[in-house]
């Protein structure tokens, strides 16, 4: 017997897999429901721009007329993951001037979380935003705990940033723990399998001396080594990958690793946050801002500014660098509770669908840098689905990809 993939009721699977279903899974080799990665399952494509800010998120303050503006934007690919810790910093600055109410501009995950954190501290909050969170770039993320993803460039971020990042990441992690097991699973853990025909090695990002251009000379990073890589600072709490012995590997690949991946179910998560915001008396007002001067027109004298990538134009902050990313979404497959990845193609099962990503492994952090085209491209998603689908046929029948 190879593998321990089992057939879900009513699912069309090859005969060999049906045969396996009858056998009890071995200890250590979990029984997994196969993913259906056929093109007919693809129901949505999402594309968005991550707001990579060279120096890391802007958490600074400034005055606009008589208003105190506290920035909370520019979280790269780490907005969800750092949201609670970053909101704690921003709201702490707001509280220090003793307001009884504040405004939050922007209703992505950073804005909405900032609003709820401020309410939990006893403040009245109004969110001013062009769109509710379901229509923001936050909702077009992939939604895994990735607190170090394109969060800053190491040089511009400076020597103090890693400590602040670690503080925000640890704070957020504990807050996510308070959301585990709630109805709808706003935050959940799943098993994540890395599969390969070759030994799996951790990629390093040592500087390439042949690349002389850099952020300092062009305003854009030119190689992965320019990015801050901070995840190892919290490896004591975040599950790391462990190699799987053949008898533990449900997929029958020559090499495999398994880790536990925290992820966010957007519909349940945003419903929960928005419900708390409204239950605490929060007010949401549709409003478009055209320049920082518009902030002076708000009735609140303390304003948290959380407009993400839009801050590049609104605040004329050209240190915010667009980093394009896209995901494909399959029909939810509730029996599938794990994710797989191979050669930087991945399929992650969530409540609102299986997320497909196809990230060129040779590009690393540089993939999408400087690209603000926000239309999705279907072909790479279908390529990833076709490639990953080989793991759901018996190993002997696979062709290497």
């Amino acid at each position, binding site marked *: 017997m190879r593998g321990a993939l089992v057939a879900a009721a009513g699912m069309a699977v090859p005969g060999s897999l049906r045969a396996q279903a009858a056998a009890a899974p071995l200890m250590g080799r979990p029984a997994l429901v196969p993913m259906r990665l056929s093109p007919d399952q693809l129901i949505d494509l999402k594309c968005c721009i991550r707001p990579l800010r060279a120096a890391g998120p802007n958490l600074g303050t400034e005055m606009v*007329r008589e208003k105190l503006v506290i920035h909370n934007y520019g979280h790269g690919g780490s907005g969800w993951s750092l949201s609670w810790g970053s909101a704690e910093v921003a709201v702490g600055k707001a509280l220090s001037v003793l307001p009884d109410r504040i405004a939050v501009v922007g209703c992505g995950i950073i804005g909405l979380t900032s609003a709820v954190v401020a309410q939990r501290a006893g403040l009245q909050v109004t969110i001013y935003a062009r769109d509710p969170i379901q229509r923001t770039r936050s909702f077009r993320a992939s939604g895994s705990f990735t607190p170090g993803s394109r969060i800053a460039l190491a040089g511009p971020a400076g020597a103090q940033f890693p400590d602040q990042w670690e503080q925000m990441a640890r704070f957020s992690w504990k807050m996510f723990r308070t959301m585990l097991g709630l109805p709808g699973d706003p935050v959940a853990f799943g098993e994540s399998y890395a599969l390969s025909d070759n030994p799996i090695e951790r990629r390093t990002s040592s500087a390439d001396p042949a690349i002389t251009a850099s952020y300092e000379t062009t305003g854009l990073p030119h190689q992965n080594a320019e990015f801050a890589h901070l995840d190892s600072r919290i490896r004591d709490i975040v599950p790391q990958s462990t190699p799987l012995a053949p008898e533990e590997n449900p997929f029958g690949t020559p090499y495999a690793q398994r880790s536990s991946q925290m992820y966010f179910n957007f519909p349940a998560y945003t419903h929960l946050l928005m419900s708390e915001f409204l239950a605490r008396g929060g007010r949401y007002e*549709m409003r478009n801002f055209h320049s920082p001067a518009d902030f002076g027109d708000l009735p609140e004298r303390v304003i948290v500014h959380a407009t993400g990538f839009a801050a590049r134009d609104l605040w004329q902050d050209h240190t915010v660098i667009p980093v394009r990313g896209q995901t494909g979404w399959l029909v939810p497959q509730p029996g599938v509770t794990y994710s797989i990845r191979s050669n930087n193609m991945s399929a992650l099962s969530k409540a609102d669908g299986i997320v497909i990503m196809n990230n060129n492994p040779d590009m690393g952090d540089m993939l999408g840098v400087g690209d603000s085209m926000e239309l999705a491209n279907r072909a790479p998603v279908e390529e990833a689905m076709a490639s990953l689908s080989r793991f759901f046929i018996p190993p002997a029948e696979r062709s290497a990809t």
Partner: protein
Amino acid sequence: MMGRKPLGWALAALVLAAASPAISRGSSDGIYTPAQADQGARVYAMKCAMCHGAALEGTVETPGLVGKFVANWAGRPVGNLFSYLGRAMPQNAPGSLTPEENAQVIAFILRANGAPEGNRLLPADGAALERLSLDAVQPAI
């Protein structure tokens, strides 16, 4: 606190009004020509429609340019919109519209939102557009 002093707000508004260039006319006065809007339709089809939609309807992700669009921009100088399009749009190639194309696209969008045509070209000039207001659509009864 400032927010509790209506008089302070009124004074601030007066000061601001005095500092702003005088608004001479608005988009309900016929501030673009039909030919200009037609040219704008061609520019829009090439550079804008792929995100904002052939009928300016937008998507869940991309703002539509009719209806709610008016709520976002009404009461401001057309120059604000001209400036924004000139520096931030199209999102994948910001700054690539010529001033003439920019004015043409605005004429096209104004027409799509019910603003009447006129005899004079919408100027491709930010300073001149600061003196024209983008008016709310009059409800058709």
